[in-house]
């Protein structure tokens, strides 16, 4: 059975795959808009942050720091640290995207977030030879971006009409969790990946108190190192990592 891939089919598939994450982002976008303006940021700057920075957790932290009258350089440095994990995403995607011209790399690079990364890395790593995978990526990133702008606007306009507690009552914060579970679990096919996930999870708990999402970065690095070391061990012991997969699934 051969599949025909077109730009449109890839674009729509990317958008469809991202729907649960877009839904999950809605309350955060609205709340960001609300929190930013009530913290003293002008509506123009608030939408500007969503449009030109496009990074949820960094935006929340920045608006909080701004409200606390922290100086710009410090907020910018914090933003840099909070978004450092995006470099990991870029490095991970780069091999699949290196053939793309700048007019693709620039917008796709600009719009890279946790959610888009989670969705598109799966597509890029699928073994089919579709020449339009970047359209899948675009289909994921564009709706995510537009939704974020829209929700920020709603948040700005609506003021205080929705608070964090009400958003949690709708369970929308759990949408991202369950989507990521659906993505990660099928990846756990070998012992190294299992170890990687365990290490990342443990460290995420241990270092949760670190400021600026550093705990996340530490946990991610721990997971990467654990997986790499475990895989290297397996290879050194002349074992095929895929043999472990069969053991795990039996």
């Amino acid at each position, binding site marked *: 059975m051969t599949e025909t891939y077109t730009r449109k089919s890839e674009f729509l598939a990317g958008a469809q795959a991202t729907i649960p994450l877009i839904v999950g982002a809605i309350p955060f976008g609205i709340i960001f808009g609300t929190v930013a303006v009530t913290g003293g940021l*002008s509506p*123009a*700057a608030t939408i*500007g942050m969503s449009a030109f*920075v496009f990074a949820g957790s*960094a935006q929340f932290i*920045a608006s909080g720091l701004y409200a606390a009258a922290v100086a*710009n350089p410090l*907020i*910018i440095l914090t*933003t*840099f640290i909070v*978004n*450092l994990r*995006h*470099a*990991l995403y*870029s*490095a*991970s*995607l*780069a*091999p699949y*995207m*290196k*053939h793309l011209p700048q007019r693709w790399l620039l917008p796709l*690079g*600009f719009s*890279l977030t*946790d959610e888009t990364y989670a969705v598109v*890395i*799966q597509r890029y790593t699928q073994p089919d030879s579709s020449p339009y995978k970047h359209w899948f990526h675009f289909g994921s990133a564009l709706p995510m971006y537009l939704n974020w702008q829209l929700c920020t606007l709603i948040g700005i306009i609506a003021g205080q009409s929705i608070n964090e507690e009400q958003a949690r009552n709708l*369970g929308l914060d*759990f949408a991202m*969790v*369950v*989507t*990521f*579970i*659906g993505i*990660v*679990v099928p990846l*756990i096919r070998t012992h190294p*990946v299992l170890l*990687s*996930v365990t290490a*990342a*999870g443990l460290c*995420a*708990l241990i270092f949760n108190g670190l400021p600026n999402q550093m*705990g*996340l970065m530490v*946990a*991610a690095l721990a*997971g*990467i*190192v*654990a*997986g790499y070391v475990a895989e*290297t061990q397996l290879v050194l012991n002349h074992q095929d990592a895929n043999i472990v997969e069969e053991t795990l699934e039996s």
Partner: protein
Amino acid sequence: MKEALLILGMMIVTFGVRYPVLALVGRIELPEPVIRALRYVPPAVLTAIIVPPVLLRDGQIALTLDNAYLIGALVAIGVAWRTRNLLWTILLGMGVFLVWRVLTGGL
């Protein structure tokens, strides 16, 4: 003006984190160990993001039955393991989460 500078600065550092790595890593031949390590980025990072919201309530580990996040996550893991189907994982995980939360009236 102060706001405009703030956004400009944030934009530069954010784009500076996302784009150069994407553009350059693709054009340089990465050593094989790096390529092997990069394969662990998706599972490690996504796990790191979702574990705290599921297991922590107010900074404390909440391995209790009234933690709807935990129950929903366990169901989602089970469904994902058996079916490898993202849609079912989301539907059943969200469904159990919402119902559980109503039943326990809690988290």
